[in-house]
């Protein structure tokens, strides 16, 4: 992921280990992650991942990546290792779309 600093793009994490805020902070600092991640508090009950967000998104495994466009639509979904190149290309494509639309309707 190169040159996305001034582009309409954001990387957001969801940590699914059900850590509390301070535990997650510790891990994020240790792994030197520069982006924001949701904490995923326990959502109780049955099978699957125990967190509330993971439940809502029916998480099947990690890593799972969703690429969402500037209108909020899910455009790609990757389960497992999918290769940086594939992901970079998809991001580039959607960023271009976002920039094009921003030109048409300037805010």
């Amino acid at each position, binding site marked *: 992921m190169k040159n996305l600093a001034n582009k*309409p*793009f*954001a*990387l*957001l*994490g*969801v*940590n*699914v*280990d059900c850590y509390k*805020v301070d535990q*997650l*902070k510790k891990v*994020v600092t*240790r*792994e030197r992650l520069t982006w*924001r*991640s*949701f*904490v*995923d*508090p326990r959502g109780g009950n*049955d*099978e*699957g991942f125990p967190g*509330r*967000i*993971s439940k*809502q*998104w*029916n*998480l*099947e495994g*990690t*890593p*799972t*990546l*969703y*690429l*969402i*466009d*500037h*209108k*909020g*639509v*899910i*455009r*790609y*979904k*990757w389960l497992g290792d999918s*290769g*940086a*190149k*594939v*992901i970079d290309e998809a*991001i580039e494509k*959607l*960023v271009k779309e*976002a920039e094009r639309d*921003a030109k048409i309707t300037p805010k």
Partner: protein
Amino acid sequence: MDRLGAGILVLVLSLSVGAAADEGPEKPATPAEQYQALLKEYREAQVAYQKARQDARTYEEQLLLKYPWPDSFAPKFLALAERHAKGPVALDALLWVATHLSSHPPKGKNPRLVKALEVLRRDHLQSKELSCVCPSMSFRLVASAETFLREVLAKNPHKDVQAEACLALAQGLSGRATMVRHLKKNLDARSFYADAIGKEYVEELLREDPAKVEAESQQFFRQLTDKYLAAMRPERLKSLCQTLGTTNTDKGSELVLRTLLDKEASREVQGLACLSLARLLRRRADQLSDPSGKEAAWARRQSEEFLERAAEKYGDVLGNNVRRQLYTLRFLAVGKVAPDIQGEDQDGKPLKLSDYRGKVVLLDFWSQG
């Protein structure tokens, strides 16, 4: 100070064990006891590693920890098998090595795995116990495992063992085809996997023709369907449905699931096969190079039909599972507006997915695991 304390404690313990052993008359451990002792040693090393990892304060500290790979325990199991080659413990020890080194395959050609598989082929090719070792080999079908499975399929007299060997070959080859395609497309994946599984193995894979590998995988899936599926136990079929529904996207797996849905007697298996078909087709749609294209749309429509059918006809045996899958398909599929997430981040600050509207968002579900 903690570490010093622990060091002294270990020393004291080992002294007292030594003293106890000196007192009584020496009674050598039986082969079975030695095998149990090895299992315990491995288990304890795993537990100790997990604990040390959790206690680590920095990433560097974590990096210093050595993971107790099964490979480092393999020589002891192999030696035990060799000392008691005629006894029943030899088979257990060899199966341990074969199973653990196949499911956590070490880098490159592993002489311990090769050795274990060779001895199994030489001394235990007729054994009924071989069915339990086959599934672990499908994870990454290395050359020695492939040779082993082909021979077991051809020469082991037990139908359930043949079935597992056939299935492992089908799944292993299907996984290999996916891997070959992935490596051919992604240059950066090559160096990553060269580090993880060995440069030679990556080069071997790059020489393969993925279409050919997949065709052979399909052949084994067909053989499984024609010859073995009807005799497999419902419990095994259920776990097979789960696996195929969670990981596979290929035509061979689709054939197995369609056959189970149409011909299997147990309604529970039928229901799971139906649900797994829906999941397999949805994943296929998402993984196509153009996930918004025609082929993807077809697969997604089929997937939705199988889900409806699962919910309508098998709701009683599937329950919650189907409702969750239906939700995934309707609200979390490519083309749908992402549901909002409201929560907090690692600093305890409020964080909302919908605040990022206007930007492209890569949402990464990660765990430390």
